[in-house]
Structures are given as C-alpha cells and as structure tokens.
C-alpha cells in the first residue's frame, strides 16, 4: 500500500486484526447469529479440496513444482471443492446450530481459535484482500481432541463501522481428513 503513510497502515492493520479477534471470539462463544452478521449477503464461502497430484519433473528447480496452488481443487476447477457456499448455506448452518437435534454438536463442541499472520495483501477502494492463519482446537464431548490448521484468504468490504466478509477461501492443511467434520465456521 505505497500511497498510505506508516500511521495509516498501522491503523488499518490494527482495525483488521481487531475485526478478526472479534470474529474468533464470537465463534468460540457460539454466537453464530452475531457472526453471520459479519458476512456480506453475497458472500462466497469456499473450501477447496486438497490432493496429492503427480509432481511434474519438467518443472524441477522451479517453485511452481511444489506450489500449494497445484494441490487445490477450487471453485473454478473441474474437481469438487469441499465446500462452496452462499449466505443461504451459512444461514442454514447457523439455524441448525440452535436446534436440539443438531446431534453432532449436542452437547456442543468446545472450540478455541488463534488467528494470526494477518497480512493485508491489497487495498482496492472499499475492498481489502487479507490473508490470515488459524489454529483451531476442537473438542466434542466423549471424543478425542482435534487441531485444525489452515489459511484464510478473505475479501473484506469496508462498512461504516467495521468490515464484512464478502469472500472467504479456506485452505486446510490436513493431508487426510481425520476430523469429525469440516462443516465448522472457519
């Protein structure tokens, strides 16, 4: 952001980090309805699938040979992302969470998120492109404890008082899916 002064950059960084901390707190407190208000109504919420493609020896010596991108099956691929959801899907998940027969989470799972490495990649008018990393501790009563790790690539829309998430792409780091669900709000 070359046209921003250092104090402006620091302020922006601070505001974005505060937004993510608040988001994490709402989710860990299971205030999913309040969390949903942080999502824009045209949100695209995506979790690409991640595989182990054949390494191409013609690319040897180049970073592209083992890039993360080549492991991902996202929305534009012919494969099948793990999740590609709209606001309605998220609203359905939120709705489910507050019903007695959401049996996978009744009793509710304990979660704790640490969000970090918040990096503002680009500012384009009223839209910020931000990446962040997360570690999530997940414990369902009567089951093992699980760690989820990944990266979020967000587009944030500037609003009057804060931000709204208009796009979120979640890159999961697990090689095999050995967790009870990938259907969490991440």
């Amino acid at each position: 952001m070359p046209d921003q002064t250092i104090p402006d950059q620091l302020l922006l960084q601070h505001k974005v980090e505060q937004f993510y901390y608040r988001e994490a707190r709402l989710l860990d407190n299971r205030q999913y309805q309040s969390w949903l208000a942080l999502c824009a109504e045209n949100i695209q919420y995506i979790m690409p699938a991640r595989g182990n493609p054949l390494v191409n020896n013609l690319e040897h010596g180049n970073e592209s040979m083992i890039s993360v991108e080549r492991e991902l099956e996202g929305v534009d691929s012919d494969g099948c992302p793990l999740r590609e959801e709209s606001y309605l899907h998220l609203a359905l998940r939120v709705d489910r969470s507050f019903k007695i027969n959401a049996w996978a989470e009744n009793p509710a799972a304990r979660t704790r998120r640490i969000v970090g490495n918040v990096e503002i990649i680009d500012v384009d008018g009223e839209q910020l492109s931000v990446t962040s990393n997360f570690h999530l501790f997940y414990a369902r009563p009567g089951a093992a404890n699980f760690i989820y790790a990944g990266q979020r690539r967000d587009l944030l829309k500037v609003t009057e008082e804060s931000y709204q998430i208009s796009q979120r792409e979640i890159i999961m780091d697990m090689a095999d899916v050995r967790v009870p669900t990938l259907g969490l709000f991440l």
Partner: protein
Amino acid sequence: MKVADLVNADATLISRRAWSDERVYQLEKRGIFGKAWLFLGHETQIPNTGDFVQAYMCETPIILARGEDDDIYACINSCSHRGLPVCRADHGNTKRFVCPYHNWSYKVSGELVAIPQERMVKKGPDKSVLGLKRVPRVESWRGMIFGSFDENIESLDSYLGDMRFYLDAFFERFPAGIEFMGAPHRWVIDANWKLPMENQLGDVNHGPYLHAAVIPPEANQEIYDHGFSVVPGPGHGATFRLMPEDVPIEQVAWGFEGLGTLLGGDEVQEYLCEVQRQSAERVGAIRSRMKGLTFGVYPNLSFLWSNTSFKVSHPRGPGQVEYWSWAAVPADAPDNIKKILRRNYSSFFGPGGILEQEDAESWMQQYLGSAIDFADDRCFYYGLGLGEEKPHPDLPGLVSGTANEYYARAFFQRWRDALMAVEDDHA
C-alpha cells in the same frame, strides 16, 4: 466365537461383536473383500492412455489406470522388490511409475520395464514375472469399474442383477451417461465400515429424526406417502419415492428438492425439469416417476441419488472407515449446472456436509456402543417390518415401505453366509 452366533436365522438380531471384533474383521477380509466385486472408479476419471487414479480394495491400495492399449487395468500398488507403493499421487497421467527406493519402473498397466541395478549383476531377473500384481478380474458396467480378487466370481452383470434396473433409472436418464467430478473426498471416521453402508442401503427412516434440524417436514411426508424400500437381491438395496402420475413435473424432477431447490436457483430447476420431461421415453413410465433416495451395492458401494454422489466405505479395521465420496453429474450437462450439482452434494454430504456430520457422529457412537462389555446378551434389534416385503408387479426384487428393515436383514444374511464359508479355512 462362531459366525452363526453373530446373526440369528432371520437376521432380526445382530451381535455387537459383528461390529467390533477384530476376528470378525479378519473373516470379512477373506470372506467378503477377497471374494466380492468391489468398486474401483469410473471410466470418466481415466479417459486417456496413461491416466490413473488410486483406489482401494479393503485395505489394499490399487492403481486403476488406462494402459497403452486403451484397456483398463487394476494393479496392487506395491513394488515387487521391497513392497513400497510405486505410485504416490492420488491421480494423474504418466508413462511410468518409478519406485522411490531403487527406481524399478513399471508401466501404468503394471508390467515391470526397468531394473536399474540389472546391468551390474551377471544374470538379470525375469522381468516378465515381476510386474505389479494384477487384480485378476476387472469389469465395468455403465462406466462403473469394479475389480475382484476372486478369479472365479460370476460376471459383474449377474452380480449386480436386478440392481441394474434401479441404477439405470438414474444412469439412463442422461444420453451421455454420468461423470465423476475430480478426486473423491476421503474422510476417516472412527466407525465400522458396515454402518455407512447400511445407512445408504435403505435406512431412510432415520431422516426425520436424526436430521430434523435440516430436512423440512414436507420432504419427510413425501417419503411416508410415496416411499419404497426394495431389495433387488440380498445385500443390495434401493429406496425411492414413486410419485403419482398426476403430480407437477417439478415435484418429480430428481435431485433438487426442498432446500436444494432454494439453493440451486432457477437455471438448475429448468435443467432438471427438462431431464424429467424426456425421462419416460428414456427409462419407461414407471422409472420416470421414480425419485430416488439411497442405493447400495454389496458390499460397500452406495449411491445417493438425491444429492448425486457415489460413496465407498473402505474398512480400516473394525473401528475405522475411510469413507470416500464423489460428486457425480450428467456428463453432458452445461458447466454451470455441473457446478451447482456438485455443490448440492458437498454442502450436505461428505466431510463438510450439513447433513452427514450428524450421520458420522451416529456412526462413531454406534461403534462405541458395539464395543462395550457386559451386554453381549443384548443383540441389536433388526426386526422392524419382518416379513412385510413382497413381490411387486412393476418392480423387481422384494418391495416394502421404508420402515421395513429387510434391506439390513438381507445384507446380514448374505454377510453371515459369506463369513461362514471361510471361518473353518486355515488361512
């Protein structure tokens, strides 16, 4: 432990040990996974020479590939030298698999073509007998490729039997058939492999209860009113609604129902109605009124018509399953429709699915319940609807309402016979 003690004569009682005992699992490997036709993949995943995907037959890793002669081959992914997997990628296209350890290299069809160390010894080994072990029988039907370790197994056609009538109710709706989109989602769940299978063979009866948070009551009512559970042959199963002749077309159109309609939007609805309009001509009057739910093919393949996905339940011991699922779409559907359809699978089923998280939790809890002590005198009750299944003038197999658990009894009778056939072998 005797197999006869695990399942009673009419399979209304199933022992907890059938789910949790390591010895039972070893018998399942020999009696079922060593003998049945097992699903490997779909032809659309390997259209070109050199294309390959990984698969499993129980716990044995398989490479499914299209060879230089354009034929399909299935080989065990284990080097003849020291046993390493020679293929480490999930899928791709290659000329050779080169084993990491000493670089023996193989064609995708399994022949050993090079041993780098050969020129340093006086007498090179006979490479023609050192290829990857081939799965002895590989056959396909409607693009679905199956393999069997039993050289003498009946043909795939006869194995599927009347199940084909029901699968065709879906496949034959589409002039170009179906295609699998990308690699399967692979989900490791601490559950026994049979329960995800049982769930799809015919257990639509849990829907209104386990999934009441998400499935709307109208959808359940439609199942009460028009639902059928059919056992086309023991171990196979199909559930569907047979819609009355006079209901509006959008109500019969497969795939998008209730929430799916809402989330899919107009373009997909129009597409599905168009498919439905042509269906009577393609699959006949009866099957065009069929609005499918869950299908199961013995022992561990299932198909969820309503959300168009295929699933395989790969055992990993008695208490763990690697559950694979693919989005399947009409091969000639426009790209945007394919994307909406794959999302109608992934949003509700698979590791991120809104619905299947509830199922997976139940499957894990069932395993815990199967492994407890001091309750071996209390078998699980499988008797609902005993004897209510009947022949039907238009539908092959034995037919009943969806609450009848005959689909599960028939599966366990076949399961019991398969295990008894090998329990006295000294393997």
